[in-house]
């Protein structure tokens, strides 16, 4: 089985992102960039499927500026066999990413596509579902368990109120939730080896995809600040305040 894993280059999750003072965009110049945490979980899951003997090849694909190669190399250091970069400096929205992925899927014919449920910059949570629509493949979103058997994949999904398990015909799309696995750290020898793995580059134009944004960001601003209140001395005062001042209990 061949697995395609999508990885995105995002601002590292430890960086607190702020709007620029003119409100036109977020200020991420010189910010540390990393592989999106949900994408890292996707790579780990693919590698585990390969270690189990279920998967035979893992192809990591990313879209974005030239530097996205770094995130593909990270995926390779974790165990992906080769990489594809769809290089563009254009702003990519989920529908455009899904269209590029569809074009790659048509070339590569993977049996499963694993990707993060959302990226921690745009917080859209759309691309996997959109790729499902464009390819007609079923989707197992927000996965906490993935089991391949008899030409199908059973995906246990984190839903409001609990877990749901669905059986999907292959090829299928899986999007990862936090508890699917805990990604390993890349070892130094594997980081060195990753530098020699093949990485092809293409562009949205080569793939015949129009990536023009459909949604324009007019303004960005910080969220409304909440003022700190008061400190109470003890539980008795707390209960009194809640009953008589806030009147919420």
């Amino acid at each position, binding site marked *: 089985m061949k697995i395609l894993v999508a990885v995105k280059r995002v601002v590292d999750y430890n960086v*607190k*992102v702020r*709007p620029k003072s003119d409100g036109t965009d*977020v200020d991420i110049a010189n910010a540390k960039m990393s592989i999106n945490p949900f994408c890292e979980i996707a790579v780990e899951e693919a590698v585990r499927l390969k270690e189990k003997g279920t998967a035979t090849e893992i192809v990591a694909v990313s879209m974005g500026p030239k530097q996205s190669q770094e995130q593909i190399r990270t995926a390779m250091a974790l165990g992906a066999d080769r990489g594809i970069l769809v290089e563009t400096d254009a702003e990519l*929205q*989920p*529908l*455009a990413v899904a269209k590029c992925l569809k074009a790659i899927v048509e070339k590569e014919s993977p049996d499963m596509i694993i990707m993060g449920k*959302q990226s*921690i*910059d*745009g*917080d859209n*949570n*759309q*691309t996997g*579902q*959109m790729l*499902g*629509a*464009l390819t*007609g493949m*079923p*989707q197992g*979103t927000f996965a*906490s368990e993935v089991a391949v058997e008899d030409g199908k994949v*059973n995906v246990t999904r*984190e*839903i*409001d*109120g609990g*877990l*749901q*398990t*669905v*059986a999907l*015909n292959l090829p299928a799309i899986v999007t990862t939730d936090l*508890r699917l696995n805990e990604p390993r750290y890349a070892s130094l020898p594997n980081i060195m080896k990753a530098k020699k793995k093949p990485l092809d580059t293409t562009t949205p134009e080569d793939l015949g995809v129009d990536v023009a944004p459909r*949604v*324009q*960001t*007019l*303004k*960005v*601003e*910080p*969220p409304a600040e909440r003022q*700190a*209140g*008061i*400190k*109470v001395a*003890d*539980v*008795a005062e*707390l209960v009194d305040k*809640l009953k008589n001042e*806030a009147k*919420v*209990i």
Partner: protein
Amino acid sequence: MSILVIAEHDNASLKGATLNTIAAAKAIGGDIDVLVAGADCGGAATAAAAAEGVSKVIKADDAAFANQLAENVALLVAELGKNYTHILAPATSNGKNIAPRAAALLDVQAISDIISVESADTFKRPVYAGNVIATVQSSDAIKVITVRGTAFDAVAAEGGSAAVEDAAGQDAGVSSFVGEELAKSDRPELTAAKIVISGGRGMQNGDNFEMLYKVADKLGAGVGASRAAVDAGFVPNDMQVGQTGKIVAPELYVAVGISGAIQHLAGMKDSKVIVAINKDEEAPIFQVADYGLVADLFDAVPELDGKL
């Protein structure tokens, strides 16, 4: 303008998130139709017809929709949606599963998790884990949107008398339902609870959450947890409050042993009154709390329980 709202329901009844989504539709303006796609979903359709501001309910009663499989429901939504200017779904796990799939079928860039309606094509939504609020404008002919329920006051559940129309369904034939495990609890659902009490890493283990359950039962509260408590395995993930978990905005939110990581704050900072109980005076949670109590939770929570 004409708006199609995708109902959140369990076939028998309508979930509250639908009423918040209808409220967002009212803010956009125009005729509001509600789609109830399910199996034996007459109860939910009747409830939707009674909701304030609904012109028409489209009931798609078909075995293919029994478990809201996205492959099947999105096909229907995309087919019906061609006749509307807006398609709105609640930003629940179900809405997030279906809406983007329907959007791509319509060749539309969806807009996720809106918190305000600025105009018919312009909306505000949080990005970067709630650190930034973006105002975005869609140029697509049909707007496909998911709505953060806590940002819109629910419309009345009663008083309407919309007509109910039937629609046919089809099975895409690529997926099937195997089973589900839903947490059984008599406590209110987190996103609907008037009071929420949440525990963090400071709880030390899952057994200690019993203390919170006791207080919650006295207050009729829902019980949540921080991501740290979930990652540590104290409690299941469906209790997680935060940017990647549930977004709540109750009348009263009590954070116990929670430091207040931005990830958690993003999920609860719109609560009306926030109480923090933490032994670390410097914990960031105190910066958003209306009432802070610097105390060991293992003393304070039992005492609170005794005083209620």
